[in-house]
């Protein structure tokens, strides 16, 4: 039976961060997950925090951390070094990120023609972060025959009053649909297919030439930038991005699309590559079905496998199983929300008030804040702050109660900081402090 210093369950940003931090520290670590996570449909940016009337990320984080029930109340100290660390890792894997937690949160265009607040983005989206100078134009440019990027509708949305929150946006926004070689007639065309096309040097040479021609014919010159769908290569992204930047007369930036998210895939792949390089193991495709517990401690983790269970012996379990979207929390018809692996106590509003009447109303659904409460070292606790579940368990990411990651845009920051912190607490060199002890006072602050 294989054994590991730690098992991480869940392949989202929290699980990947925890696994990478452990592997880097020399631990034998095994990541198990039933499938891919939110990286595959998210924007690929790092959403750390954004709140109305908070100018910087740091300011938003501080405001969230003021609420003792928010994960940032525990994580805000770990957050800056954790972000620094993961960005270093990503840079090393050829996926640099731009922006800082002290820079302003700014509106960046989305593929429905709205804007979303952002501050830390991959290099391919970085040009969207810079303030718009007077006289600068934005050309929204996409391939004809691609149904997940509609330049006319996007441009129309971005011209609307209020789209740029009252701050200075581009002086004008123009749509540009360009016919790229062979795209319109393909039978199956999604973002990944397009990204693969861009990895063919000859094809992309022709594609950039076609875009240049269309810009000239459309009279769309002058200072400005262009918004392209986020399909500039997958594995060979750095080369495609460099060539796009040098070949196109307007500075390009990528706009994230409906799933599958190419920028999110790049993020996932970069972290996975770093984990493997550091000696960690990643096993995705089957669900973890059982956590073995003996004498109140985790002893093994069992994953479904063909005709048997695959069991890893370990006394450290990092649960990064996700919130409701990821399946780490499961809603039941009887109105309960449960954590399926260890049946940890879940903090949730009563069933009658799970959902808001309008999902897009400010504040979102009351159920969004549901999750597992933890102590300062990310051990699960119950409603009264007493340890819950077996010893040897840490929880992180969107499983943590008290965050509304969609509205506060804090999901990636919580994931990275909690993954990093959970791993730190489990490093072989770190003192073990798994004996039950109440930190409720500390948590409640």
């Amino acid at each position, binding site marked *: 039976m294989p054994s590991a210093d730690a098992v991480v369950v869940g392949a989202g940003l929290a699980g990947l961060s925890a696994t990478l931090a452990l592997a880097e520290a020399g631990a034998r670590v095994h990541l198990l997950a039933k499938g891919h996570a939110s990286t595959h449909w998210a924007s690929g940016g790092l959403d750390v925090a954004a709140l109305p009337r908070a100018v910087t990320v740091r300011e938003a984080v501080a405001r969230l951390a003021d609420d003792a029930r928010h994960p940032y109340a525990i994580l805000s100290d770990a957050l800056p070094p954790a972000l620094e660390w993961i960005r270093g890792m990503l840079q090393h894997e050829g996926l640099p990120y731009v922006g800082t937690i002290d820079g302003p949160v700014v509106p960046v265009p989305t*593929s429905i023609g709205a804007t*979303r607040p952002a501050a830390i983005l991959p290099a391919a989206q970085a040009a969207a972060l810079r303030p718009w100078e007077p006289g600068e134009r934005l050309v929204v440019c996409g391939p004809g*025959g691609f149904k*997940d990027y509609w330049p006319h509708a996007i441009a129309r949305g971005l011209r609307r009053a209020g789209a740029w*929150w009252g701050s200075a946006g581009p002086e004008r926004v123009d749509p540009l649909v360009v016919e790229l070689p062979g795209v319109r007639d393909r039978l199956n065309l999604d973002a990944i297919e397009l990204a693969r096309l861009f990895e063919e040097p000859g094809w992309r040479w022709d594609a950039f030439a076609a875009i240049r021609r269309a810009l000239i014919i459309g009279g769309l010159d002058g200072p400005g930038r262009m918004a392209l769908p986020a399909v500039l290569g997958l594995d060979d992204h750095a080369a495609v991005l460099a060539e796009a930047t040098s070949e196109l007369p307007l500075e390009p930036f990528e706009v*994230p699309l409906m799933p599958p998210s190419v920028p999110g895939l790049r993020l996932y792949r970069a972290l996975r590559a770093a984990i493997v390089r550091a000696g960690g193991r990643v096993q995705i495709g089957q669900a973890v079905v059982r956590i073995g517990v003996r004498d109140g401690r985790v002893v093994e983790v069992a994953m479904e496998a063909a005709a048997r269970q695959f069991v890893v012996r370990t006394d450290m379990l990092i649960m990064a199983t996700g919130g409701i979207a990821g399946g780490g929390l499961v809603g039941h018809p009887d109105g309960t929300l449960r954590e399926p692996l260890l049946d940890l106590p879940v903090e949730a509003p009563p069933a009658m008030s799970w959902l808001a009447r309008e999902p*897009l*109303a400010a504040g*979102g659904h009351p159920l969004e804040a549901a999750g597992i409460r933890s102590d300062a070292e990310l051990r699960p606790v119950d409603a009264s702050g007493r340890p819950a579940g077996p010893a040897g368990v840490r929880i992180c990411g969107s499983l943590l109660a008290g965050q509304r990651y969609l509205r506060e845009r804090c999901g990636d920051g919580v994931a990275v900081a909690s993954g990093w912190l959970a791993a730190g607490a489990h490093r072989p060199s770190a003192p073990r402090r798994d004996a039950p002890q109440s930190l409720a006072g500390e948590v409640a602050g």
Partner: protein
Amino acid sequence: MGERMLTPDVLVIGGGATGAGLLRDLARRGLRCLLVDRSDFGTGTSGRYHGLLHSGGRYVSKDPSAARECIVENQVLRRIAAGCIEDTGGIFVATPDDPDDYVDAFPGACAAAGIDCDEIPVTETLRREPALSPAIRRAFRVPDAALEPWQLIEANLADARAHGADAWPYQRVVAIQRDGRRISGVTVRDERSGASTRVVPRMIASAAGAWAGQVAALAGVELMMSPGKGTMIVYNQRMTDTVVNRCHPPGDGDIMVPVHTVAILGTTEELVEDPDDDETSSDEVQALINEGEALFPALRRMRVLRAYTGVRPLYRDPAVQGPEASDDGRAISRSHIILDHEARDGVEGLISIVGGKLTTYRLMAEQAANAVCAKLGMSEPCTTAGEPLPGMGDSRAHWLGHRLAEHEDRGGGDADLICECEMVTRAMLERFLDRRGPCSIDDIRRGTRLGMGPCQGGFCTFRAAAIMAERAPDGHTDRAAPGGSASDPEGALSTFLNERSKGTRAVAWGRQLQELWMVTGIYVGVMGLEGSSSEHGGEATEDHGAVS
């Protein structure tokens, strides 16, 4: 000032199946007619039923005359509206809990009503529909089918238009004027622009169904409807390709209808005061599933996409005593009745058609048209049973794969497929938009089925919004349909998603809750769709949130 005035022969109020059928019938008899609906066509009871074309089997023991009407109209619709029908066939199955006397009498009762009914061996039934409970004891085959309501309504309206009639959506009747006993005019308000129109018809035919009492009240006529609320739930798969009924006296959760790519479990029954009471509770949903498990034991493990309610236009004749007068909605007849308000209430120029069911819409329309013609001193015969609806002359029934086959025949690429679940192509969408002009995404949904499949619009809605925006000329602000418009795709998206989420509230658990979270995550997190994104960093300059 500026108020339009129209003088049709007949004003039809209500754009459900009955109203549309009535408009067609009257227009074909040579009358100049106008139909108005307060909302889009087919948004009331017609668009919110379980999708069943009754064989009549459900009514054979309690209401044999309704059963006979059903089978006759069933056969008529197969001739004139084949394109809206999927000939699934139907079965009545007896579970161990169903009363022997009812089951034993069932085939005879069908025969008496003129319904073809064969008993088929249980083993064969289970081979054809393996998701059915293996505990079933007997099974009877009847000619049930699935009927798509919006296409049916559109086809009726198209034929009416071809015969000179007009039909207006989003036009609410706000006042009915009387000159003594005689109705002298009607004021209709455009729900989008607020403009009003005065209509002075020779006759009004109210086909407002469950809302008929409200229309009658405007004319000073008391008409007590007993709206019967029924809840249905939509599954993300067809666990059966045949309509499955339980062979027992009609109750909750005893029918499953395969409809296009999904299946619908019906129905509950509750009398309500207000026909606009469309709240679905999770208790109702749980009760439905509990009952439905007798037919399909694995039901609880299947994913529910949404729950919705429809309101039956039940009418209790005040003169009738006995069980009909009870509070049990199922005791009220499903038959229809035409109320002549001149004879009944002394008000000239108004009839109402109440009761009934979608399967008999054409018959109801025929009888209502007869009543209208009699009032107007005309004797033209009805021709709606003989003439196929436009575009349905080839009498080929719809089948599940037909959209895919058509798409492949044309050699269409993936880029043309806007809604993958329901196989809605860009050309279908554009044709609908050409016909309808400015409209909401919800209108598109009813017109094309876009967003009605397993993803419930998560991946196709924004494409539809984008295509609408592409078609609208730059800088153009169109007359908005309630629920967003081409000039505001983001507003249209918000409204649509809020509306879809309403249907999820009562079924928010398991996979469907997960799906709701993912879709919300994509639209809010990645796409920046918010009630007021302008809140960030500055003052709110515009409210592009939901239209309430």
